[in-house]
């Protein structure tokens, strides 16, 4: 589903954020990418969603080499990727329903299709009663669940979450993780970059640990601080 081949990233200021990483993620996997700040996980995530291009190496997502992709093709790549951010990134002047519907509108989905799918995903994330609320009327957890609903409404094969629980209290963080697990069980490949060691320990998923731009650990069912 995701293949990262000998990927390096050197920023224009000379700092080498990712050093010759090779990683393969199968369809339907749930992968935690962990590491301290500055370990290169954000850079890696940004390269996955083609916000950044690797300096060398190639990234293949869903059979498509994204490093050779033209700029005009990027939107179509992103429609195959559900993306969730630490800071939610909701449109503040649109309601929960509109925020989720927006991701469908972008793909030029029909109004009928939108009217059918949006309520479904909203009830999946438990926001069926909040569809008319605006983001500033929601708690952090509710905002992140809205963002999750938006990420999965187009039924993408891959979901990428960059520190999805970073702005949430521990209890709410668990709600979001359970939801991610739920989404994974429905067949979506899930990649989560996180700092939340307790969650990683508890969930016993595949863990890829980065340090100074290198993969220092990759275990099938691991915790945050396991020995390599």
């Amino acid at each position, binding site marked *: 589903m995701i293949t990262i081949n000998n990927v390096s990233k050197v920023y224009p200021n000379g700092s080498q954020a990712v050093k010759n990483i090779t990683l393969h993620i199968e369809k339907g996997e749930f992968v935690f990418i962990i590491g301290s700040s500055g370990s290169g996980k954000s850079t890696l995530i940004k390269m996955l969603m083609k916000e950044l291009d690797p300096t060398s190496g190639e990234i293949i997502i869903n059979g498509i080499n994204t490093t050779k992709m033209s700029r005009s093709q990027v939107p179509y790549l992103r429609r195959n990727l559900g993306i969730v951010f630490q800071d939610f990134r*909701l*449109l503040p002047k649109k309601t929960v329903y509109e925020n989720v519907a927006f991701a469908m509108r*972008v793909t*030029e989905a029909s109004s009928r299709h939108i009217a059918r799918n949006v309520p479904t995903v909203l009830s999946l994330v438990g926001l069926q009663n909040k569809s008319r609320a605006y983001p500033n009327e929601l708690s952090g957890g509710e905002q992140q669940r809205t963002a999750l609903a*938006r990420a999965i409404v187009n039924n993408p094969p891959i979901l990428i979450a960059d520190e999805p629980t970073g702005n949430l209290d521990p209890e709410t963080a668990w709600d979001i993780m359970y939801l991610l697990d739920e989404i994974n069980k429905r067949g979506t490949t899930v990649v989560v970059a996180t700092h939340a060691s307790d969650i990683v320990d508890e969930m016993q998923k595949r863990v890829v640990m980065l340090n100074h731009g290198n993969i220092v650990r990759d275990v099938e069912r691991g915790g945050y601080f396991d020995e390599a």
Partner: protein
Amino acid sequence: MKLSSVRYYIHEGISGLLRNSLMTVASIATVAACIFIVTVSCCLIGNLHAMLKQLESDIGIVVFLDDDADSNLINKVSDELNQIEHVTLVTYISPQEALDGLKEEWDADDILSGFDGENNPLPHSFEVSIDSIENQAGILDAIEQIDGIRNVKNAQAATDVLLKLNKVVSIVGVIGIAILGIISVVIITNTIKISVYNRRTEINIMKYVGATDWFIRWPFVVEGIVIGVIGAAIPLIISWPLYSKCVSLAYEHFSILTNIASFLGSYEIFSKIVPLGLLAGIALGVLGSVTSIRKYLKV
């Protein structure tokens, strides 16, 4: 492009305008101010041009025939004059008509009374009107070729002055409007840039959920069109009656003007300015919008 998307673009564009109402008003005011200034300049230049043209056509060429000219020669010369290119009107002036003209002009019935009939020393003549003063030299050459002509008179000095004035007005007009146009684009682009800057996170989010560049652009294009149309309509609606009023005031207070030249009718001038102004407004709005969001699309 699907119909539902078109509806979405229009809806988004208009609600974008309403949400950022302060920026919308600022953009519309900028477009309106620019179009107003250009409209006023067009009125001034258009009228100046029209007056010069009018003066040009008043400066005709007078062709005097030989003293012994008979009706055959008069007809022949008349035909030949009519065949010259760029000649718009040939009027025959008999000696008697010329004398009557003189009497009226000099207000001297008595002094000239002895020259009536057989004693009239004035020759047969033609007044020749031409389409444009630039063609005068060529026409004069052609007239010289005709047999039976004694003399050709034209106001060379006045012609030169008019030609120069016409050129100056054209150049100044074109340069002035071009400068105003460039200033307008710069101001409008900046105004719209601020409104786009306020919405950069929105654009950023659109990019992440997989919106194509044109999907993001279209609502801004709609905004640009609305700003352009309203921004052009306001100054046009104001300046049309304003122009009519100014013209009638000018005729009232400077009645001497009526003898020299008349102003262009307001319909005559605004039937040209209105479509051009609306087009310019739309072009300014759309150009401003599209260039302003370019930077934020590169995510």
